[in-house]
């Protein structure tokens, strides 16, 4: 997707990680890990260097499998070509991580192929609706016409929540009554968008656990409806992952990819102290690019993913 609101975002970007750092510094150190020390000291690599590195990776939710894979790589390199000091370890691990995670602006919004259909999926409470409000606002600010499809017809007051975001973003919502078939709402939204030559349709879906077979099938059906109504749709399917998510995130990504054909990830709530490292494990296994990060509850708190800054933040 073309990074909507590019310039506004540029300004924010530098602000984000410093803000993040401030937030973290403010936390009273509940369980403080002196991770930074491993990299600042110009000392030789020993067992404890690798141990603290391992703790940093585990503590960031990268998971035991990916962590031990990375640690093995370092150990291997250290013994083969002899890594001199902690600084070398850092650059090595940084490169390894950067090979795995990539930020990508995957599918450019086509101006000829209208509407560009984006479906937002994820488990309950990760920030789908909020992300849609933010995204819609960016597209609209970029001069695109946008409709939001309220296909979460399940959760209490979900549509009302979306309505408010629609007003904030100045974007029209296509809705039906509570309990309606999500695919029917989608059909309506696509029909209305075709008639109005709308550029972008963003589809909100009800949060669902990836283990609920029938709910996952519902997503498959929505995909089919989209494909039938608009050529090439859905053009994007974004999986929203909450930064506090642990290893279950990998399973979420697997299942949503299977049913919904995920094309990209939005990592939300990075304004807390959680690092969101599970996306490393996800990217490693499924090779899905991370497109945006959510850094707050306000409408501007969505910025393009920056792999380097993300990787550096894992060690802070």
């Amino acid at each position, binding site marked *: 997707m073309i990074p909507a609101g590019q310039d506004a975002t540029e300004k924010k970007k530098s602000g984000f990680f410093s803000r993040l750092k401030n937030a*973290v510094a403010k936390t009273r150190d509940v369980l403080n890990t002196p991770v930074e020390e491993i990299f600042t000291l110009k000392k030789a690599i020993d067992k404890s260097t690798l141990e603290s590195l391992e703790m940093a990776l585990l503590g960031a939710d990268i998971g*035991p499998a990916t962590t031990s894979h990375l640690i093995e790589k370092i150990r291997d390199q250290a013994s083969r070509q002899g890594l001199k000091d902690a600084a070398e370890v850092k650059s090595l691990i940084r490169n390894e991580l950067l090979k795995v995670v990539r930020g990508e602006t995957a599918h450019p919004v086509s101006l000829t192929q209208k509407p560009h259909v984006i479906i937002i999926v994820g488990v309950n*409470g990760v920030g789908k609706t909020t992300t849609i409000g933010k995204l819609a606002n960016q597209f609209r600010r970029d001069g695109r016409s946008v409709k939001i499809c309220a296909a979460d017809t399940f959760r*209490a007051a979900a549509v*009302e*929540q979306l309505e408010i975001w629609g007003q904030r973003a100045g974007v029209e919502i296509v809705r039906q009554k509570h309990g309606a078939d999500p695919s029917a709402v989608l059909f309506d939204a696509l029909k209305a968008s075709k008639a109005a030559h709308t550029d972008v349709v963003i589809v909100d879906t009800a949060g669902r656990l990836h283990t609920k077979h029938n709910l996952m099938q519902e997503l498959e059906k929505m995909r089919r409806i989209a494909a039938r109504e608009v050529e090439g749709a859905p053009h994007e399917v974004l999986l929203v992952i909450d930064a*506090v998510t*642990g290893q279950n995130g990998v399973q979420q990504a697997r299942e949503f990819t299977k049913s919904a054909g995920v094309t990209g990830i939005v990592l939300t709530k990075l304004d807390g102290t959680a690092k969101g490292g599970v996306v490393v494990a996800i990217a490693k296994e499924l090779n899905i690019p991370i497109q945006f990060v959510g850094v707050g509850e306000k409408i501007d708190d969505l910025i393009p993913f920056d792999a380097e800054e993300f990787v550096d933040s894992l060690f802070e």
Partner: protein
Amino acid sequence: MFDNLTEKFQRTFKTLRGEAKLTENNIDFAMHEIRVALLEADVNFKVVKEFIDRVRTKCLGAEVMTALSPAQQVIAFVRDELIATLGDKEARIVYSKNPPSVFLIVGLQGSGKTTSTGKLAGWLMKNGHRPLLLSVDVYRPAAREQLAVVARDVNAKLYPGEGVNEPLKLAKAALREASLTGYDVLLVDTAGRLHVDEALMQELSMLKRELNPSEILFVADAMTGQDAVKSAAEFHELLGISGVLLTKLDGDARGGAALSIRAVTGQPIKFVGVGEKLDALEQFYPDRMVSRLLGMGDVLSLIEKAQETFDLKQAERLQEKLRKDEFSLADFRDQIQQMRKMGPLDKILGMLPQIGPMKDLKKANLDERELVRTEAIINSMTERERNHHQIINGQRRKRIARGSGTTVNQVNQVLKQYAQMRKMMKSVSGGLMGGKIPRNLSQFLPKN
């Protein structure tokens, strides 16, 4: 990842089983596997380390117990220690001496506070209380509307507080309302917030001071990873939480956060949320959590239940029949009866590890009524039909349908299920009830 773990555990303990007693070597090996299992389950790495240290010490100091194999011994230590950490008895809910009691529901954004508040209201009502609900989430769009809908759905009274947009004012007014009108519990749903958000955390402090709650429940998502220790510790330090409500346990997250939160706050898990429906709230049982953490579904409780209900001899006979391909419709009926004795089917299936054919079993959408119908259909067959399913032709199907008050279609369905069951059970050479599970896992059971 999930599938491997159960297998890895079984392999580990198979290896250990060969050895006569616990040695430093095999303890190291077992500790390594358990460490990975707990990390995979999202238990915080520091909590894991302390936990492993404790278990290792116990293992090293263990007397040789001839009654247990080394694997059983290690499992027993791990299990005991996990239960000791999680709390070995059901936690009690605290009410204040002078009603109304106030329960303050707090937690991060999206953890499931509002739904849980509705569930708690339902639970309280079922236990003879009259709760009044209040949302002080004046920030998230439509948050108060959401609680209003949830309250209506469980037939609980909501304090609307229309026109008031200040949490503290709302709280005071609702408390007054509750006292005046005889509601004995005021449930206060608060806005989700990050523990680093000082202003909003202060707001909670103030609410606490004003309301003097008897319960401050920290709502945490079962999918939470390493960060659980930080958020829980911050909320606890500021507010002194009295318990934890762990949500979304109906998914396949292992829920290591439960252990982490318990370890850093010392507060018990009081409730678990197990579905989106408003009655999907249960009290917390540490022993069930233990096997879940270790990635074995609820195999341990399943075994206990199975032991109560199953005749091992019969299971062995069944295994034999399967091997000889003699699994008849009568056996099929026996199986169904056994299953029904064990309790609600989806619960039992939920306890199984999500591996191999078991995964498909869960998707098979079996439900209780269907079991009853199936039994009726098999009851309407003749002995010969039950032993030789091949002879059940169209004519016979019609008769069976009439006899059981069902349709030919439903009879066909049962025969198809029977065929599938045969196939499935053969493929796992034993399957759910066929003796394979007790045999494989007998190493986890005390020898008697």
